[in-house]
C-alpha cells in the first residue's frame, strides 16, 4: 500500500502539530500514520511468520491482517494515554504491540484447533480438566456447534451459497450457477449471514 500524500508539513520537524492532529482525530494525520505503519509492520509480520500449523483455519494473510488490526486497536488505546516526543516513539510502540499481538495470534490459532476440530467434548474431557481455564474453550466450542447445527439445517442451495461466498467467490458467479439473479443471491446471503451472526451474538 502506498503511503498517503503529503500532510502539507513535515511531521518529523513539526511533530507537535502532527500529534495534535492525531489527538484532534484529523483524518489526514491518521491516514498518514496508518499507511506509515502498514507499510512497515505488515512486511515485518510476514517475516516473523512461518509457524502457522498446516491445518490452521486461517491463511497467512488472514493471520497477519488480524494481528495488524488488533495491534492498531491496542495502539490507539495506548496512544490516548501516552506522551510522545517524536514519530520514532509512536513507531516503536506499534512494533512492540505488534510483536505481542503476533504471539497472541499463535495462541489463538492453537485455541482454534481445540475449538473447531474436537468433535466431542467428552473425548477431550480428560485433557481439558488439566487446563486451568477450559471454560472459554467449552463456551467457544458450544457457539461453533450451534453454528454447525444451524448450517446443517439449511437447504443445500443456501449452504452452497454461503460456502462459496466464504471461499471468496463473487456473488454474481454464485448467482449464475444457482440460477438466481444477483440481487436475490445477495439478499439470501445477507439473511443467512445475519442469522449466523445472531447465533454468535446471542451465545456470546
Amino acid at each position, binding site marked *: 500500500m502506498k503511503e498517503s500524500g503529503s500532510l502539507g508539513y513535515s511531521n518529523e520537524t513539526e511533530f507537535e502539530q502532527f500529534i495534535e492532529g492525531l489527538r484532534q482525530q484529523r483524518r489526514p494525520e491518521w491516514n498518514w500514520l496508518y499507511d506509515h505503519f502498514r507499510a512497515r509492520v505488515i512486511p515485518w509480520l510476514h517475516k516473523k511468520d512461518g509457524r502457522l500449523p498446516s491445518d490452521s483455519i486461517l491463511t497467512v494473510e488472514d493471520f497477519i491482517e488480524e494481528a495488524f488490526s488488533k495491534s492498531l486497536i491496542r495502539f490507539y488505546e495506548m496512544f490516548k494515554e501516552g506522551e510522545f516526543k517524536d514519530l520514532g516513539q509512536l513507531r516503536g510502540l506499534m512494533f512492540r504491540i505488534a510483536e505481542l499481538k503476533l504471539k497472541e495470534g499463535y495462541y489463538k490459532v492453537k485455541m482454534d484447533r481445540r475449538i473447531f476440530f474436537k468433535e466431542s467434548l467428552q473425548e477431550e474431557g480428560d485433557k481439558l480438566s488439566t487446563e486451568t481455564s477450559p471454560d472459554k474453550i467449552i463456551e*467457544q466450542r458450544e457457539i461453533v456447534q450451534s453454528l454447525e447445527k444451524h448450517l446443517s439445517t439449511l437447504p443445500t442451495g443456501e449452504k452452497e451459497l454461503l460456502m462459496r461466498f466464504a471461499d471468496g467467490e463473487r456473488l454474481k458467479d454464485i448467482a449464475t450457477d444457482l440460477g438466481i439473479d444477483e440481487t436475490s443471491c445477495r439478499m439470501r446471503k445477507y439473511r443467512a449471514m445475519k442469522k449466523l*451472526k445472531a447465533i454468535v451474538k446471542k451465545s456470546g
Partner: protein
Amino acid sequence: MNRKYIEENDVIDRYLLHQLSEEELRDFSLEMMQDPSLQAEVEEARVVMKTLWKTRRTKRAKKKFRWLPIVFIFSILLLGLLGYTLFQSPKNFSIDQISNPEENMDSPELPTSEKRETKLQEQIETENENPPNDLPAKNTLEQQNPSKEKKASPKKAIAADFSPNTLLESWIGTGVRSNEYSFFLSKPVSDSKMNRVAGKVDFQVAGEVESPESEIVAYFQVHLFSNQEEDYKKFKSLYSWDLEFEEKEGKFHFNIEENLELEPGLYYYLIRDEDTGMKHVVGKMRVE
C-alpha cells in the same frame, strides 16, 4: 466511512475476505480502531467465517479422500491374494502333494501323513510322561525368580545397543522453540549416564516453561524412545506421560519421576506438543 456504508456495502464480510480496496481498508481499519462496537461485530463475523471455512475444508478433505475406501478394498484383495500365494508355498504345498504320493518320490524331506501321525503319537507320549502334577513345581520356581517373569515383557528389551538414532540425533540441542513456549530442562542432563539398580533406572524429567500467556493450553507429552530408528519412524515410544504444569511466580513447572525397568542401551526422550507435533526438547541418555 459510516455505519450505513459499512452495512450497505457488506464491508465487514469483505474485510474478512480481503476484498476491500486499499482506501476502504484504511477507512474501515481506522473506523474499527475507534469503535469498540464495530470491533465486537467483526469478531462475531470472524467466528461465523471461521466456522464456514472449517466446514468447507472438512468437506474438501472428505472429497479428497473419497477414493480411500476403494484403495482399502483393493488393499484387502491384494493381501488376500498374497496370503493365498503364501499358503501355496512348498511347506504347505506338501499337503496337496501327499494326496499324490507318486509326484513326491523325489522329495524325501517332505513329511508323509504316516510321519505326522508318528510325531503326534510321540507328542502324546511326551505329555503322558510329564503328568499335570509337575506344573505346581514349575510355577513355584518362577515365583522364586520374579525378574525372569518380568523380562518377558516385550517393551523392555528394545534398546539392545548404543548405536545412535540418526533421526533423533539431529534434534538434540537445537532448542526447538515456538513463539509461545520455551522449555528449560533441569533433568535429565542430555547425554547423561544412568546406572541400573536391580534392573531399574530412576528417570526424571523436570524443568519449567516460559509462556507469554497466563495459562498453558497446549497438550504436551514426554516420550521415551529406544535407539531403534524404526520405533521412532512409527512413533512407537517405550513410555509416554502427559505433562502437567504447576504455576509458580509466572513460570510453569513440571516434574515426572518414574522408576523404569530398562535394559542397558541408548535412549532418547522428547517433549512434544501433541496438537502440532512440534518437538520442544530432545535429549538422550545411556543406561549402563
